[in-house]
């Protein structure tokens, strides 16, 4: 457990120290370019194909026809961490899984973001019990987390909501271009 904690501290320090510099690189000195870059980043998040438990099925469902994640540029699930900039931790992280998860996070190139999906990833969820000996109580103890999506498991819409929140964090606006022009009125899609 000590080793895992040291590794987590290392990842945290690294991301805090260099986050601003690494996220935009030299482009940070040009505000307009930076803004354009950020809108581009927000509109083409590439998640990692990484399912841990129940929530992974809802993550898959979010990528399928009904709730199409591709509408937000986040459909390109990459099997390799080195091609991704979004890690969706969808499920329970166990003690055995923790080093692998942190390695995956480290393998991702900057800029990178993390969504903790589901109660298990947020706090251990239903497995945060007295005699817990194997479940990590919250993935934010291991890696920095940007957006939390609670639920057990959250509906796919909640994951989309999380991605919209993440876009808000990256680009400063809830609906960066081109989705900004969306109407406010919400239509209800009936089930036959």
């Amino acid at each position: 457990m000590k080793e895992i904690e040291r590794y987590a501290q290392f990842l945290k320090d690294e991301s805090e120290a260099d986050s601003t510099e690494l996220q935009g690189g030299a482009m940070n000195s040009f505000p307009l370019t930076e803004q354009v870059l950020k809108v581009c980043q927000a509109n083409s998040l590439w998640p990692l194909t990484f399912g841990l438990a129940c929530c992974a099925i809802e993550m898959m469902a979010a990528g399928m026809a009904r709730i199409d994640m591709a509408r937000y540029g986040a459909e390109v699930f990459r099997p390799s961490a080195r091609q991704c900039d979004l890690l969706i931790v969808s499920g329970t992280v166990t003690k055995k899984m923790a080093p692998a998860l942190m390695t995956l996070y480290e393998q991702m190139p900057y800029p990178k973001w993390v969504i903790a999906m589901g109660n298990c990833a947020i706090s251990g969820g239903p497995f945060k019990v007295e005699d817990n000996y194997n479940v990590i109580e919250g993935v934010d103890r291991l890696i920095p987390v940007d957006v939390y999506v609670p639920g057990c498991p959250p509906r796919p819409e909640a994951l989309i909501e999380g991605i919209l929140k993440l876009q808000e964090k990256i680009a400063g606006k809830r609906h960066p271009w081109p989705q900004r022009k969306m109407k406010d009125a919400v239509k209800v899609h009936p089930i036959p």
Partner: protein
Amino acid sequence: MSGYFSELITGSKSLLVGLGVTFKALISPVVTVQYPREKIDVTSAVRGHIDLVKDEATGTHRCMVCLSCMKVCPCQCITVQGEKREGVKGKVLTLFALDFTKCSLCGLCVESCKPKAIDFSNEYELAGFTRDEFVFDLLKRVKERA
């Protein structure tokens, strides 16, 4: 050699049949829901986090601090506190906190509640920047809804 060509033909045929399925899907109605512009018509049965029910008659909650929900919860995510007050029968609710990040949405608390003071909300699309956002003070929420 003849096997090679017959395989080539059956293979091409199976591919064309498969493409036909794709073509049919192309002209069939769209199934994608344009969330968040469109929302699926989720039923009232859908389980969001629990919430205190507002009684229309009295304009307040119906909880009588029997603590049965707190005891039955397998995940220990509910904290209920009450106190005795002068002139009031039974206890008065002072705190009803829900740590939604530990909840497993099993519904045992709602079933165990005799006065039907708690029910599932329909908030199924939560997301936030910290985990503390999901520790709800349900008593405050029910008062705000008034």
